[in-house]
């Protein structure tokens, strides 16, 4: 209970920091705090593997990518805030949504499960059980996600590439340039063989 309250406070404060802090760097670091508190909540829910993944992939890889881009682009704080009326409407909407979700959660009549039974079933949410489901029940989703990741990789590389995109025209141009260069070299060699001075004469002249 104590862990839950502390981590809930941390994660809500971090989430508020994400939307209220003006500097993007501060907001991103605040989101890292939220992600780490959610990882602790995962541990309390017997999902130890997901907690580790959360810290390594989310807080480690994804947020580092975010910080990297923020620092690379040197994004400044926003100068023109959103129209005040619109902003207050968004806050009101968020409050209503939060209240509705809390009410929906609290009105649910189901009881909390017996912790001992859950612990026995999930076995600490270990990777072996997740693998069994992921490579059985979720096989299609797993393969689709693999394709998605590959597409994302290719897309990201294609998006940030500078200069003309590699294509038929460019490659043909490069081939033509290579051919021209080869022709010129061959002509040079031929000229040297036939009309030019013999190599030893050149050497002697050089001396």
């Amino acid at each position, binding site marked *: 209970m104590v862990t839950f309250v502390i981590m*809930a406070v941390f994660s809500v404060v971090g989430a508020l920091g994400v939307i209220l802090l003006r500097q993007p760097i501060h907001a991103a670091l605040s989101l890292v705090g939220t992600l780490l508190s959610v990882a602790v909540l995962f541990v309390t829910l017997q999902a130890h593997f997901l907690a580790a993944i959360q810290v390594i992939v989310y807080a480690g890889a994804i947020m580092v990518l975010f910080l990297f881009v923020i620092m690379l682009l040197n994004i400044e704080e926003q100068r023109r805030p959103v129209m005040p009326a619109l902003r207050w409407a968004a806050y009101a909407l968020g409050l209503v949504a*939060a209240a509705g979700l809390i009410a929906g959660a609290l009105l649910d009549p189901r009881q909390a499960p017996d912790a001992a039974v859950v612990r026995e079933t999930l076995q600490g949410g270990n990777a072996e059980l997740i693998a069994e489901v992921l490579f059985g029940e979720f096989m299609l989703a797993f393969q689709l996600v693999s394709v998605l990741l590959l597409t994302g990789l290719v897309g990201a590389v294609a998006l940030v590439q500078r200069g003309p995109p590699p294509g038929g025209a460019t490659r043909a141009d490069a081939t033509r340039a290579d051919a021209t260069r080869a022709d010129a070299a061959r002509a040079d060699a031929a000229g040297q063989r036939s009309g030019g001075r013999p190599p030893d004469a050149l050497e002697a002249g050089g001396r």
Partner: protein
Amino acid sequence: MVPTEAYVALSGVMFSIGAVGVLTRRSAIMIFLSVELMLNSANLALVTYAYQWAEAGMLAGISGQTAVFIILSVAAAEVAVGLGILVAIFRNRASTDVDALAEVRL
């Protein structure tokens, strides 16, 4: 023992905060951060329900956690492509303000 409702309520609060962030920020990167927040609250809800239904058997308990694993991969792909688009836009416009990109809309 913490009731399931408390976790779901926390997840709802985080999701609402993320939604407000998407609505109130102008910079595309801040909108991305808020979307990450919403994805995380959905993950928390899924893990909570996996815990709630673990009594019903191993598959019911673990499939929620497996869904979180897949959401994590989708989030990684989304961030890679999204930040790539952001870098490409910033190179042309020197700005990440979403209002400056009005012609991108359908």
